[in-house]
């Protein structure tokens, strides 16, 4: 006798929701930490680049490749390389940070999908159970005939 038990269904639904909430909180917190870490790392990276900029110009100056009335191609290329490295480093860092965020978002979306699928499965199972219970009740009602 597979009669419908709303309490069982609600208990299962509460359990699934609590599990979904717990894993969602973990994912959200991990994402928060990742962003925090990324922000800090990016700031450190910016600090390093900012500190390196004067040293680069000073280095080429000591070598006589840069200074007043001195303009060399080596210095220009070196300065452009520095700028490229800085831009590439920052972009790669930001891209990595965005991809990390996307991963958290994707994880969250998949988690939501799984949760909704679980609830939908339970709803479908519930409706099927109700239908079976209705048929069994019907059979019991007319079983004496």
């Amino acid at each position, binding site marked *: 006798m597979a009669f419908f038990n709303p309490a069982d269904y609600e208990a299962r639904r509460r359990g699934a929701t609590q599990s979904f909430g717990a894993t969602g909180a973990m994912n959200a917190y991990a994402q928060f930490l990742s962003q925090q870490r990324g922000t800090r790392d990016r700031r450190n990276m910016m600090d390093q680049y900012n500190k390196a900029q004067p040293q680069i110009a000073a280095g080429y100056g000591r070598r006589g490749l840069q200074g007043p009335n001195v303009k060399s191609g080596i210095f220009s290329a070196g*300065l452009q390389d520095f700028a490229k490295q800085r831009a590439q480093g920052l972009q790669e860092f930001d891209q990595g940070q965005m991809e990390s965020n996307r991963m958290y978002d994707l994880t969250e979306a998949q988690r*939501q999908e799984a949760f909704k699928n679980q*609830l*939908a499965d339970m*709803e479908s199972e519930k409706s099927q159970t109700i*239908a079976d*219970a*209705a*048929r069994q009740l019907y059979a019991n009602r007319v079983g004496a005939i």
Partner: protein
Amino acid sequence: MAHVSGHNTVTDSGVTRWDSAGRRARTEGENDYMDTYGTAGGGMNNPSFFTSTLPKPGAANNQSSIDALIAAITQGYGGSGSGSSGTNSAASTAASRLGMAELAYKKQQDAAQAALDLQTKNEGLAKDASILGNTQDFYNAGQAGTGGYSKEFDRLIGMIDAQGTKSEEQIGGAYKNAMGAITGGYNTAKGLGDSGYRALNAYLAANPNDPYAGMQATVGSAPDALTQYLNAYGVSDQPVQGQIQADLLQAQQGAGNFNNLANLLSSIAQMGASSRGAESAMGQNLFNTELGSERAGYEGKAATQRQTAMNSLQQQLYQDRMQQESARSAMANQLVMQILAANGDVGGEVTQQPVTQQPVIPPGMAPNRGKGNDIKPPPAAAYKSPEQIAMEAGRLTEDQARALEARRGY
């Protein structure tokens, strides 16, 4: 004298006699005795005359014995008186009177006994006639269907029919209740099942499972190209800008790939939702189909049970009716046999209440009235005294008969 002791059938004088044990005897010796004492010796003056010549009460009163007795008396009265003296004449007269009185008493007793026998016989005949008439009435009324022996069978068959009607009504009521339960249960179950699927459809509509729908990957802002810094040293930032653009393009491609992935996942999720909708619709359709099939099955089962019960009932009613009709036929045959055995008439088509044979009931007898059969008493049977019988036979004149009856007190 040819007297034979123990022989009681000698009828020389025609007088019926009884011996001391009451046995009837007519012997020649006794006739001689009658001749002797009836003429010269005083005849009936002799006491043995009465004991030897008068009939005993209760004896058969046949005509010949009465005639012989009258002849003996007459002879005693009209004796020649030869050889008798005056004293003997007076005694003879007294004895004759006493003898006549006793003879009258005996004759009265015989007449009473004969009347009683006749009454008994008539009563028997009347009873038989009454029984026959009642039996014919009972049979004819049964044949005509107006009562009689068929009445009780009609009542029993009526009870069977009434019981059958009631049983049919009960079977119909049970079928109706069963159909009501089937229909009511079907509606209840359908409502319950539909409510379950309605809740599922409402949930699916309110909770579309497509978390990738709003997911869009972005590239973000381009990093600083240190343009002012490079310009401060007279260095062009063009190569740096080119690299930044190249990196941005690559990032856009990566975001595009992610968006494609999100779209793919979204479409898969939408397909899943659509599949769930189809699943719900199919589940509900299957539920309704199965429920309808079960309903049809229950209805068919109830109809079959009703038909089976009706068949069984009809068979039982038929058997009961046949049993009663068979018993009715057997009783009719039995009545016919009884009527025929009593010389009754059972022939002819009975179209109305038949006229029955009226029994002959003697006077003083109450008519034997059967149930519903009013029998009129027959005319009183004519009682004939022995004197009247003798007169009709020509053995006595009318005056003699009246004289004898007057002496007997009639």
